[in-house]
């Protein structure tokens, strides 16, 4: 029997994988990809709770509506962030996060 906890554990696994990617990768593009994985973990969690909630149908669908907004913001984020990465690469010849230490105090 499929239960809510299955969705939650899948979501936790995806989120931890994303955290590992963000912390371990050097390329800024790979860091952004890992952030996408973390956003998808959140979506899996929200969709699972929306499917298993015992509220009325027009209330439980709010979980899915939140996912619509997260997907929108994620699309805006990845477009803008990749444009910034491109600009940084053109200016500095590198897109590795450990070499971008201009603003490091």
């Amino acid at each position: 029997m499929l239960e809510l906890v299955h969705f939650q554990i899948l979501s936790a696994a995806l989120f931890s994988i994303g955290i590992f990617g963000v912390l371990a990768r050097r390329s800024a593009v790979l860091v952004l990809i890992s952030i996408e994985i973390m956003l998808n973990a959140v979506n899996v969690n929200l969709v699972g709770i929306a499917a298993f909630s015992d509220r009325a149908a027009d209330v439980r669908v709010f979980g899915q509506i939140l996912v619509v907004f997260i997907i929108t913001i994620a699309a805006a984020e990845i477009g803008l962030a990749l444009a910034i990465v491109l600009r940084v690469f053109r200016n500095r010849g590198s897109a590795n996060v450990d070499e971008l230490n201009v603003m490091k105090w």
Partner: protein
Amino acid sequence: MTAQLVVFYLLGAITVLSSLGVVLTRNVVHAAFMLLVALLAVAGIFLVAVAEFLALAQILIYGGAVTVVVLFAIMLTRTDDQPRADHSQRPLAALAAIGVFALLVVAFVASDVANLESATGVATDAETGFENLALGLFTDWAIPFEMASLVLLVALIGAIMLARNVEDGE
């Protein structure tokens, strides 16, 4: 073991394994393609949870747009020498990830959200179909929905301004 559970385990395994591939592979292009596999498997998970619209949106936006944009970025930021893909802080990152995973699983199992709501199982198609989603989006959530489209427009104009070649422009 119901068929639903088998499908969920299969899709979950594909998602987790290809996500691990994304963060572990040394080849950047392979990482982008494994991200595509992971995101399509998440679309399948959405279908198991009876969220058809989200599954379609996931395939269109992530499978189509985001992967292509990421691939373009990878091609454009490529340098000749293939440097090591990971930080020296990789073991610490693994430790942090495992710690977060353990914490989340303990919290999910201990809090037992499912029983708080006395859930009875996955909602049927009629209960959370397109109709309720559309009604919610265009009544209670109409203003946030329009704001989200405005945010997307502004972000994409900003992205064009940033990525444009200034020397060519003026």
